[in-house]
């Protein structure tokens, strides 16, 4: 292999690895960049000629001082360095980069040049961040489930002991009175276990698409909740400005809409004479938007920012759900590439479900 071929392969290897090399020659006061380093910085040899000072200027303002310190130490005392910092391309795009440098010295120990490699690690960092986030969430999930699963069991068991004592004392009235909270504790436990299983399935479910008539779909979901005590108190109206069938994951759509609809029924405002939920289906910028407005009790102001987080409950005395409903709904919306937004109203709540409309491939009917 001749020199040119070797250079060509080195260049190809650098491009494939997203990694470049550089050399700072202290005698000639020159800075050399390989092609990949230009590419990582978002410049070309035609638009930029590397100089030590201006090269440092590519770094994020918060990182510049550290880079200057590393370079200064390398040149003055021959200290090798390694760092993960950020650069800002001329387009404004921020990239995460890893830099490693080694000082080359002459026989007397004087630094004559610094050689380094430079890698774009933006993708790796993003994956690391996502993993860290998933890990934190898993830790929180384990902590909360271990607590929330034990809690109703401990209460029910203790209360059954008290009921036994009451029966022993002949206080049947009290014993019967205390049975109802035992049932509530166990019902809570059941709903929590059901939601945890749903959540586990949700994490593993594929977003298989099927054609869905959204208005009809919502209609059928609403009627599933006729067992909730307050169902008859709430008037639903659906306006569909967008009436086409859309290709969407029915499983995720169900999680989103079931949670929003059942919440609107459970958290109606018993103080009001008329309780309504207005649903509007429209298409905005290639997205499906389902807007749900209700005049229910809404969220307490202090707790609004927690509404999509897991294991958060907001309304004592009304219902003791698992605190996972809105978290699951938002997770499903994210899985579909969309989101759920919340808007407090003077009286009630507004939720906007925004989902990108996916074009269905021919012959891909579920």
């Amino acid at each position, binding site marked *: 292999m001749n020199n040119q071929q070797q250079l060509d392969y080195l260049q190809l290897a650098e491009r494939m690895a997203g990694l470049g090399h550089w050399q700072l020659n202290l005698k000639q006061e020159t800075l050399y960049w390989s092609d990949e380093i230009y590419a990582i910085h978002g410049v070309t040899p035609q638009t930029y000629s590397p100089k030590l000072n201006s090269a440092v200027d590519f770094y994020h303002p918060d990182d510049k001082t550290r880079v200057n310190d590393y370079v200064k130490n390398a040149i003055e005392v021959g200290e090798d360095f390694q760092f993960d910092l950020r650069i800002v391309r001329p387009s404004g795009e921020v990239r995460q980069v890893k830099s490693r440098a080694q000082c080359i010295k002459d026989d007397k120990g004087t630094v004559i040049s610094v050689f380094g490699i430079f890698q774009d690690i933006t993708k790796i960092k993003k994956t690391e961040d996502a993993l860290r986030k998933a890990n934190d969430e898993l830790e929180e999930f384990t902590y909360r489930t271990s*607590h929330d699963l034990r809690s109703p069991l401990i*209460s029910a068991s203790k209360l059954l002991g008290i009921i036994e004592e009451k029966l022993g004392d002949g206080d049947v009235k009290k014993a019967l009175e205390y049975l109802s*909270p035992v049932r509530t504790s166990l019902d809570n436990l059941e709903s929590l276990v059901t939601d945890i299983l749903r959540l586990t399935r949700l994490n593993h479910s594929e977003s298989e698409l099927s054609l869905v008539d959204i208005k009809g779909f919502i209609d059928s979901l609403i009627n599933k909740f006729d067992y909730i005590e307050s169902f008859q108190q709430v008037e639903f109206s659906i306006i569909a400005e967008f009436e086409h069938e859309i290709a969407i994951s029915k499983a995720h759509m169900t999680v989103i809409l079931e949670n929003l609809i059942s919440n609107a029924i459970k958290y109606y405002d018993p103080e009001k004479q008329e309780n309504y939920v207005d649903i509007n289906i429209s298409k905005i910028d290639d997205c499906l938007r389902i807007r749900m407005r209700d005049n229910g009790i809404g969220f307490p102001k202090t707790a609004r920012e927690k509404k999509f987080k897991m*294991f958060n409950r907001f*309304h*004592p*005395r009304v219902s*003791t759900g698992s605190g996972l409903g809105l978290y699951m709904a938002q997770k499903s919306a994210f899985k579909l590439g969309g989101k759920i937004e919340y808007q407090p109203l003077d009286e009630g709540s507004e939720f906007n479900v925004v989902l990108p409309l996916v074009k269905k491939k021919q012959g891909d009917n579920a």
Partner: protein
Amino acid sequence: MSNIKEVLLIDDDMSDQIIAKEAISGFDSSIVLLSAFDGEEALTLLSTTSSPDLILLDINIPGMNGHEFLEECFKREWFSTAVVMLTTSDQQRDKDRALQYDFVKDYITMPLETSLFGELVETLV
């Protein structure tokens, strides 16, 4: 008889309310047990009508959780009531977070028993 005349329990679980009521009345039937189902309700009670001698606080309550309730109490200069955590969580991080406040006197795990409440009252005196 104890110095504790009035206890406020902050917990939205009906079973826990009954268990606490039974435990406390088993120790001293003259103690009045007040209930708040969440932190906001408790703060309203405390800032208006009620001045209990002791607050029993669960962590897992709707709206602001027990820890956030403690933060809110800490912000209020007038707040000086003794708080005892009563929760199913035996996690060290929950204990550390709660016990950092001077007004949090103890951390006990559910369920509340008459004997446990008795010991608690002794230590508070």
